[in-house]
């Protein structure tokens, strides 16, 4: 007799579990080597506490009442629970703090799209080291994690979350008019972006600048190309990215980093550097992260922070694809 499970959830059977466990242990071993201690937090938290972390409260897709009538929610990532944990338990601890995790998180899915409602994430949080050093350390750990997973072709995209917010301010676009523009940018809908920018009353030349900027991705040469497009926001942003990139080079971990001025993640708490991870064997993003220097303040302590999370199952798929590719070519 077949008893269904909800779409977007799944059972894992021994063959796959063995491989996932091995990947899990490899990743945690890398994180531990860099001094990141593994933590676990409850899958269920008070909705009010999670909502503090992400302004857009719609982020927790699953809410329910407990026996006392309190509103609970399933976590949608580990960054907010760890911010809560740091504020509650490590407020007086000496910085920096380094934590890693492998945990399941929960998000709403769109039906029939093969999206996961429950998925495993492996990642780290580095608290107390500002940009660029903190960002560089996180990228170094991420690179080592990708190496450990055998994804030697994987690329880390490095962007700046503040670029377009500041650029729009510079262009005099404020308030409600910003939202549709940032949304188009995050979706990388260039045709729609051009329309929205024109409707916001921006001149043709500056529209072209925005469009060109969102297309710049590659090595450090794109920073020079961006600077030629001009503007204070671009100047500040490229200076930040340039500092980070130089520091990455001096640590010898810049090789797999792609500077990407079109990168914009839609999670509400990012500021400064943002990261995305790609592997040529997979059409989907493997993970992401960045800086969230404002997040801990919402929990009552003012500390800079950065981190990343990899989707464990996607890393596993990419691993499998890369293995079969190596077998095919070798």
């Amino acid at each position: 007799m077949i008893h269904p499970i909800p779409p977007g959830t799944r059972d894992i059977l021994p063959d796959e579990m063995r491989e996932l466990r091995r990947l899990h242990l490899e990743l945690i071993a890398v994180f531990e080597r860099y001094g990141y201690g593994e933590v676990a937090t409850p899958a269920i938290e008070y909705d009010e506490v999670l909502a503090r972390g992400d302004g857009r409260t719609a982020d927790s897709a699953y809410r329910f009442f407990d026996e006392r009538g309190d509103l609970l929610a399933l976590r949608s990532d580990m960054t907010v629970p760890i911010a809560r944990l740091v504020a509650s338990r490590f407020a007086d601890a000496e910085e920096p703090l380094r934590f890693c995790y492998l945990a399941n998180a929960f998000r709403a899915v769109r039906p029939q799209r093969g999206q996961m409602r429950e998925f495993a994430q492996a990642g780290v949080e580095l608290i107390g080291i500002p940009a660029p050093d903190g960002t560089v350390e996180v990228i170094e750990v991420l690179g080592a994690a990708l190496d450990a997973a055998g994804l030697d072709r994987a690329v880390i995209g490095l962007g700046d979350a503040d670029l377009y917010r500041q650029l729009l301010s510079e262009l005099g676009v404020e308030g409600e008019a910003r939202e549709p523009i940032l949304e188009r940018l995050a979706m990388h809908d260039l045709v729609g972006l051009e329309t929205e920018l024109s409707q916001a009353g921006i001149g043709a030349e500056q529209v072209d600048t925005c469009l060109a900027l969102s297309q710049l991705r590659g090595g450090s040469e794109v920073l020079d190309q961006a600077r030629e497009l001009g503007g204070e926001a671009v100047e500040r942003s490229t200076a930040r990215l340039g500092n980070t990139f130089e520091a990455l080079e001096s640590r010898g971990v810049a090789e797999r980093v792609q500077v990407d001025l079109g990168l914009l993640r839609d999670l509400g708490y990012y500021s400064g550097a943002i990261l995305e991870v790609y592997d040529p064997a997979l059409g989907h993003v493997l993970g992401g992260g960045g800086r969230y220097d404002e997040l801990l303040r919402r929990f009552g302590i003012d500390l800079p922070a950065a981190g990343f999370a990899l989707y464990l199952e996607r890393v596993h798929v990419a691993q499998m694809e890369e293995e079969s590719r190596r077998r095919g070519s070798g």
Partner: protein
Amino acid sequence: MTVEVAGNAGAIPDGPLKLAVPRGALFEETLDALERAGIDTAAVRGASRALIFPGKAIALVTMRPSDVPTYVEAGAADVGITGKDVLLEQSDRMVYELLDLGYGRCRMVLAGRRGDERLGESQRRLGMMRIATKYPRVAERHFESTGRQVETIEVKGSVELAPLIGLADGIVDLVATGRTLEENDLEVREEIVECSARFVANRVAHKLRAAEIDELMGRLREGAET
């Protein structure tokens, strides 16, 4: 024709760039646009029933227009061409829309029977219109954003039939010349959105094969402007 291999960040592209080509109404003009961009389309134009046409730098993969976002989102095709109508209907597909190619222009419209007030009457007396369409999500969004309630009826074949024999009060459909509407005694009541062919990319391919995609996009843009 030479295509630079993406040199960024040590990524090694695998094989030719796979481009999803829509069969159907956009097929001929898409092949013309690709020709103008310097891509050999002779094999595709031949009577072959093949689906994949390998090339040195670019492999063409032909498919239904509505499948293009599916293949591109998954990365099975790196880039593709399809109509804005398809992208709007499948707006939850995460693909990058990079360029308006300018051809295949048409309008998404609400149409009803000529001289017939059924649309207005249903709205007034029943509070609800019945709309037949191949684009249920576009239709629902349009009526929702204009504060009206509709019952959308999804049909696969000739939408024009629905109001003629009483399945629906009106239709939401694409109109290029308006001839089909006219022949079926239907007329445009509202314009919803303008559509045309768009160049789309997989988000990972857009990052990892940046040089190839930018170059192709540049050539398509030049072709579209001439």
